[in-house]
């Protein structure tokens, strides 16, 4: 008896990759891929069902397929294609409610995996430096994707209470980066010049796409011996990068702006509809956020392949050089070092940095 896995949000590259990957697992018989729009990428041998999870049809899909594992990946910050923020919010919140309602009715569902985000912790100067899964956020996100994620998690907790027989796993991912990741942060790092908030150097954590797929796989199968894969887990690569480090490694110069100016510019850009640069992104780029991954290692038994720095290096390779490539700067310094006459005049430069 193999498993039947239902995956939502497959029209996104990450969902598509996960569908293709999980089919190769021997214990999986059938994969049902669900999304409101047909995906542009192929889904291997999975059965694609075009269904909007905001509609009750999802209950019929779930009942007919007899899925025993549901992987809910349709909790995202950005719209696919030309959707507005309202659509995204509805898909996140109403979609989750419908899906959970369907799961509650279904006798076959044994396992639910929800892709959440570390955005639920918010980002405030009065928060502890490192969030654990139990840290209560000091300032609940007031809107945007972070609030969606908080609400989604609330509904999932309610579901877990009502259906204690279903193993529920909530995975809070740090910023996902990778060759195909299309997150607000990835588009931020693609700007030729990075606007930053003056006087703040946020700590950031990244998780590689490959690790995302892998941890979703671990969560959707039976737990390995000695591990437990139900509960809430922070998922992030090891280590921390400062925004200044990121910009230097990318070779993109930064423009520090005063915080009020950044907030104002952000809302202007949002109003003009040029990009979805939400207030919570600005907060993240002001105060940063670091989560503890002890639970992920010890309870879930997952070791990420990529550290934060490696994830970022991989991402930087895929983006091409910026205006100030680190190699060029390093070369310039090496040329100075190779100069035959060296005065003491370089020492002030050293201390200035």
């Amino acid at each position, binding site marked *: 008896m193999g498993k039947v896995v239902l995956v939502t949000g497959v029209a996104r590259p990450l969902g598509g990759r996960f569908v293709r990957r999980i089919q190769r697992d021997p214990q999986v018989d059938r994969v049902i891929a669900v999304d409101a729009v047909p995906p542009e990428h192929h889904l291997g041998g999975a059965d694609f069902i075009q269904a909007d999870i905001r509609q009750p049809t999802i209950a019929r899909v779930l009942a007919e397929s007899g899925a025993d594992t549901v992987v809910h990946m349709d909790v995202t910050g950005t719209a696919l294609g030309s959707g507005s923020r309202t659509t995204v919010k509805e898909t996140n919140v109403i979609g989750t409610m419908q899906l959970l309602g369907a799961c509650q009715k279904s006798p076959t569902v044994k396992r639910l995996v929800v892709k959440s985000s570390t955005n639920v912790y918010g980002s405030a100067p009065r928060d502890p*430096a490192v969030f654990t899964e139990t840290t209560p956020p000091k300032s609940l996100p007031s809107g945007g994707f972070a609030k969606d994620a908080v609400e989604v998690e609330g509904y999932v907790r309610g579901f877990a209470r009502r259906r204690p027989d279903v193993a529920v796993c909530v995975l809070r991912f740090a910023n996902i980066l990778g060759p195909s990741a299309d997150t607000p942060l990835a588009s931020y790092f693609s700007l030729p010049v990075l606007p930053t908030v003056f006087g703040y150097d946020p700590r950031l954590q990244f998780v590689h796409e490959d690790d995302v797929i892998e941890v979703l796989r671990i969560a959707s199968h039976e737990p390995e011996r000695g591990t437990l894969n139900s509960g809430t887990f922070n998922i992030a690569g090891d280590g921390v990068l400062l925004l200044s480090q990121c910009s*230097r*490694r990318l070779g993109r110069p930064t423009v520090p702006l005063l915080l009020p100016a950044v907030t104002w510019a952000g809302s202007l850009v949002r109003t003009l509809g040029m990009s979805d640069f939400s207030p919570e992104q600005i907060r993240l780029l002001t105060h940063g956020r670091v989560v503890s991954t002890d639970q992920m290692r010890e309870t879930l038994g997952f070791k990420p392949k990529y550290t934060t720095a490696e994830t970022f290096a991989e991402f930087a390779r895929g983006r091409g050089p910026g205006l100030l490539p680190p190699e060029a700067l*390093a070369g310039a310094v*090496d040329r100075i070092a190779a100069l035959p006459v*060296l005065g003491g005049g370089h020492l002030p430069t*050293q201390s200035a940095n």
Partner: protein
Amino acid sequence: MADAKVIPFDDDRSRGGAVQRPSRRRSAGSRRKSGESALVREVQPLPGRSFAQDDVPVTREEEPTPAKPQDDDGGGLERRIASGLAFLRRRLTGDYDVDDFGYDEELTDQVLMSLLRPVYENYFRVEVKGVENIPSEGGALIVANHSGTLPLDGLMMQVAVHDHHPAGRHLRLLAADLVFVLPVVNELARKLGHTLACAEDAERLLGQGELVGVMPEGFKGIGKPFGERYKLQRFGRGGFVSTALRKGTPIIPCSIVGAEEIYPMIGNAKTLARLLGFPYFPLTPTFPWLGPLGAIPLPTKWTIQFGEPIPTDGYPPEAAEDPMLMFNLTDQVREQIQHTLYKLLVQRRSVFF
């Protein structure tokens, strides 16, 4: 401070000489000066000097590692330039590491400490005593008095530990949330290894075996009027004791003399403070009357004394929940700091010398 006179002069003065660590000092001038002052005031300077000699090999061992400018001969200059350029290269390309708290060890060691060191050595002429009370490894909580309107005492304590401890330990200070709200200040504080004064962060740092510094008086201590100098304020709610108890790390009381007089606070512009969102707005004989010039601290002579560690590992795990024990230990630490403060005040010849 009349009652302080009855406290006998006692034995731990002989350790004063131990603290003058000639090998780490860069300027021979200041070394000689402090050595002389130790000679003048020490009844028995010889044990102190020999103690310092014992320590020399320890520091020698770790000297080659960073690009610390040590000697001024020709080969040294070349090496300094080379290491300076290597440092510049790493900084420009973002090729350095920070920990989860944003602590940038390289920047702290090579730049920020070099900026603080002149203030420490030449302006406040800090004399450190009892640095051997700090364990060479493992977590420990240093609890100090807080004073001086601006938290210079914390920074000086950090330099004291960094420059004088034989194992070259780094002090991780716990700072008020105001520090992490202010731009620039928060960035520097994070890079210096400071973090928010909350139980989560303190426990995490102690669990990693770090040396953590805390000033439990908080704003009550730093913003007290000049007339109440060297009178310890209430020690918060004793949270630092329960944190140390939970981690079983020793508590090291630390008394700082001299910081009280750097900005004699004779008044407090409460309305202005409220407007600016600060806990107090100091009025000193010079500030704000002389403008920025009035913000220069008075060049007082400082003494930092680390006291005997108070062990906490002998208590059962539930001791951290015992309020009586917590209050007792808090009082013990407080008494010890106050006692040492009085003792140091009696020994002090003058505020400025």
